[in-house]
C-alpha cells in the first residue's frame, strides 16, 4: 500500500500511540473553545455591582437607590455617604461603578431646579465599564422620567397627555444591523476564529516538522510513492478535520444552543471556515519548508498567530491603527475571514457580497501551497535537513 492511504494509515498509527498527540490534535482545541464559550455564555450582563453614595439621605434619593438596584443590569453592592468608600470599593473590585447623589438633591427638585447626579464607571476595565455606563444611563433616565411624570400628575395634567408629552420625539434604535444588544457575540465568534487559525497553522507545522526533526521525511515520502501532493494531503486530513470539528462545535454552541441569530448564508460561512483552515495550514507548511526547523517554525507560528487578533481589527478598527500595524493587519488572512464572518453572521449580507473575501482566501491558499509543496518535497528528499533545531 502506497500513496494517500498509506500516509493516512501512518498518521493514524502515530496518533494512536501518543496521548499527547491526541491532545494537541483534538482535545486542546475543543477544550480551549469550550472555555472561551463558557466565559461569555451568559451573553448579557446582569447585576453589575455599583456603589450608591447617598449624601442627600431623603426619600427621593433612597428611591433612586432602589431604582438602580431594581434595574436588571445593576445591583447596588454598597450604600454609603462617603465617595472615598465608593472609590475604594471600585479599586478593590467590589464594584464597577459609583453613583453620587449630592446633598440638597431633593430640595432642588422640589424647588423646580434640576437635581444633578454624578456617576463614574471603571474605564480601566473598559468593556465592563461600558456596560455599566449604559445601564446607569438608562436607569437614571427612567428615574428622571418617573419624577417628571409624577410632577405633572401633581400639577393636574391628564394621565394620557403625560405619557405622550414626556417625549415629543422618540428615538428608536434600529436592530436590523445589530441584532445583539452587546458586543459579546462579535468578540466570541472572533476569538474562536483566532484560536482556530492558531491550531491550523500549528497542526501543519507539527505534522511536517516532526518528520524533518526525526529524519523520517524520506520514509514519509516513500510511503506516499514519492509524490508530494498525496504525502501532504494525507498528512493534513486529521488536523483539518480536528480544526473543523472544534469550530463547528463552537458555531453550534453559539447559534444552536445559545440561539444567536444567523441572518447570512451558512454555505458561505462554512466555506470560509474551511478556506481559513487551509490557508493557515498552507502558511504553516511554507514556514516549515523555509526554515526546515520544527522548533523555529513553531516559534514563527506563535509570532504570527498569537497577536493576530489584536491586528485583525476585531476589537479595534484597522483604520485607526498606525500604518505599519495596518499593513500587518491587512496581510493576515484572519482579518479577511473576520470581515466575512461579520458580514454573514451580523449584517446578513447577501452571499455575493462575500465573494471577494472567499476569493482572497482561496487565492492565498493556492499561493501558499504552490510555494510550500516544492520546498517541502526538496526538504523531504534531503535526509540532513531538519536536524538542526
Amino acid at each position: 500500500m502506497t500513496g494517500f492511504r498509506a500516509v493516512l494509515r501512518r498518521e493514524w498509527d502515530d496518533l494512536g500511540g501518543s496521548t499527547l498527540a491526541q491532545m494537541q490534535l483534538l482535545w486542546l482545541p475543543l477544550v480551549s473553545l469550550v472555555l472561551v464559550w463558557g466565559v461569555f455564555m451568559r451573553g448579557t450582563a446582569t447585576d453589575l455591582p455599583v456603589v450608591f453614595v447617598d449624601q442627600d439621605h431623603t426619600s427621593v434619593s433612597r428611591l433612586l437607590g432602589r431604582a438602580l438596584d431594581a434595574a436588571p443590569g445593576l445591583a447596588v453592592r454598597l450604600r454609603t455617604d462617603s465617595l472615598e468608600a465608593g472609590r475604594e470599593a471600585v479599586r478593590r473590585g467590589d464594584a464597577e461603578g459609583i453613583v453620587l447623589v449630592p446633598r440638597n438633591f431633593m430640595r432642588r427638585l422640589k424647588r423646580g431646579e434640576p437635581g444633578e447626579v454624578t456617576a463614574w464607571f471603571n474605564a480601566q476595565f473598559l468593556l465592563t465599564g461600558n456596560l455599566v455606563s449604559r445601564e446607569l444611563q438608562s436607569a437614571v433616565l427612567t428615574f428622571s422620567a418617573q419624577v417628571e411624570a409624577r410632577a405633572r400628575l401633581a400639577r393636574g395634567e391628564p394621565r394620557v397627555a403625560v405619557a405622550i408629552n414626556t417625549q415629543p420625539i422618540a428615538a428608536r434604535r434600529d436592530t436590523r444591523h445589530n441584532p445583539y444588544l452587546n458586543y459579546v457575540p462579535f468578540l466570541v465568534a472572533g476569538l474562536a476564529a483566532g484560536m482556530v487559525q492558531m491550531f491550523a497553522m500549528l497542526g501543519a507545522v507539527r505534522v511536517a516538522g516532526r518528520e524533518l526533526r526525526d529524519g523520517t521525511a524520506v520514509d514519509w515520502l516513500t510511503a506516499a510513492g514519492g509524490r508530494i501532493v498525496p504525502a501532504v494531503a494525507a498528512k493534513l486530513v486529521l488536523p483539518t478535520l480536528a480544526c473543523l470539528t472544534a469550530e463547528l462545535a463552537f458555531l453550534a454552541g453559539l447559534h444552536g444552543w445559545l440561539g444567536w441569530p444567523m441572518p447570512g448564508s451558512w454555505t458561505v460561512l462554512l466555506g470560509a471556515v474551511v478556506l481559513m483552515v487551509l490557508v493557515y495550514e498552507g502558511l504553516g507548511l511554507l514556514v516549515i519548508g523555509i526554515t526546515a526547523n520544527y522548533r523555529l517554525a513553531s516559534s514563527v507560528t506563535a509570532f504570527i498567530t498569537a497577536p493576530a487578533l489584536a491586528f485583525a481589527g476585531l476589537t479595534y478598527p484597522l483604520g485607526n491603527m498606525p500604518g505599519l500595524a495596518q499593513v500587518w493587519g491587512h496581510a493576515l488572512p484572519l482579518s479577511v475571514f473576520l470581515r466575512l464572518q461579520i458580514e454573514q453572521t451580523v449584517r446578513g449580507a447577501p452571499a455575493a457580497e462575500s465573494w471577494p473575501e472567499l476569493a482572497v482566501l482561496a487565492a492565498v491558499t493556492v499561493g501558499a501551497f504552490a510555494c510550500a509543496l516544492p520546498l517541502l518535497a526538496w526538504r523531504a528528499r534531503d535526509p540532513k535537513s531538519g536536524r538542526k533545531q
Partner: protein
Amino acid sequence: MNGFLQGFGHTLRRVFTDSGARLLLVGAVGVYSMFYPLPYLHEVVKSSPVGVVDLDGSSLSRQLVRWVGAHENLQIVRRFAQPAEMEAAVAAGDIDGYLVIPAGFRADVLRGRHTVVIYGGDASRFLVFKQVLGGLAEATGTLSAGIEVRRLMAAGMSQRQALTAQGPVQLHLRPLFNTREGYGSYLIPAAFVLILQQTLLLGVGMIFGTDRARLGAAKVASHSTRRLVGRFAGGCLAYMTLYAAHAVFYFGFCFWLFDMPRNGDGLTLALFSVPFLLAITLFAQALGGVCRQRETSIQGLLVTSIPFLFLAGFAWPLDLMPLPLRWLAHLVPTTAGIQGFLRLNQMGASLAEVTHWWWTLWALCLLYAWPAWRSWRRIYGAQPAPPT
C-alpha cells in the same frame, strides 16, 4: 548553599546558551513589548462618518440633521433619498451609523403626536458603535427636549421651570481611572502580564522538553534530596530574577513610553511581584512536566493564551462566569496577576486593597510547588553534573 548557587548559575546559562529558549524568554519579551502596543499607538477619538435619510424635508428635520452634524462624535458624510441606499452604504462599510427621519415628522411634532426617528449603526465595530449611537441619541434628545420646553412655556411655565421639568434628574457620567477611555491603555497592561506568564511557560516548557528528550526520564536520584532542592530553588530564583527584570522593563519603561497610567509605587509593586513571579515560575515548571520534546510547549501551550486572557475577568466580569470557570480562573496566575497589577498600577490601589489576589498568588505558589519540583526532579534528578 552550593547547590543553590549552582542551580541559579546553571539555569541562567541554560537560558542564554539555547537559541530557542533565549528567543522565547528574552527575545519574545522584548519584541512583544513593542509589537502588541503597535495597533493602539495613534489612538485618537475620531468623529465617525454617518449618513442621514431625511424623508420629511421640513425646517424641523433640517434642524435635527444640522445638530447631528454639529455633534463632536459625528460627521455627516452622506445624505440619502431612500433607506435602501443607506442600507447599501452600511453594508459597504462607508458609514458607521445613520438616522432616518420619517415623512410627516414636523407635522406630527407640531400636532403633539408621537413621532419616532430611527437610528442605528454598524454594531460589529463596537468601540465606534457606542460613540455613534451616543451621539445620535444625544442630538435627537436635545431637539426633543427643546420642543418640550417650548410646549411647557406655551402652557405658562417660566423658562427655568420648563427646563427643569423636561429633565428633572441630570446625570453626569464620567470614566474612572482610564480617563481617556483608551482601548490601548485598557488592553496593554493586561496583555503585558499575560505575555510575562506565557513566554515563561513556553520557554521553560522548551527547556524541560529538550532536556527530557535528551536525558531521558531519571530512574534514581544520584544526589541527596537536600542538594537537589537547593538546585531546584536556585533555578526558580534564576527565572524570577530574569522576569523581575522583564517586569521592571514592562511596568516601568514601556508604560512610560506608551503613556499608560502609572499610579503604583515601587515598593507595593515589588511586594506584589514576589508571589506573582514565584507563582508563574512554579506554574511554568509544573506544566513543563508534560513537555517531552523541544517543540511540545509551543505546540501544546501556546493556545492557552486566549482562554487565560479571557478567564482573567478583564473583558467579562469574573462574577458573571459559570462557577466552575471562576474556580478554574483562580488556578491560573495571570488572573490574580492581571487583577492585582491593573489595580495597583493603573487604578492606584494600595496593597491592602488587593490582598485577595496577593493571597491567591501565594496559594498558587503552594499549590504548584510540589508538581513543579516533581517535574524538575524527573528530568534533572539523576544528572551527575548539571547539563550544559
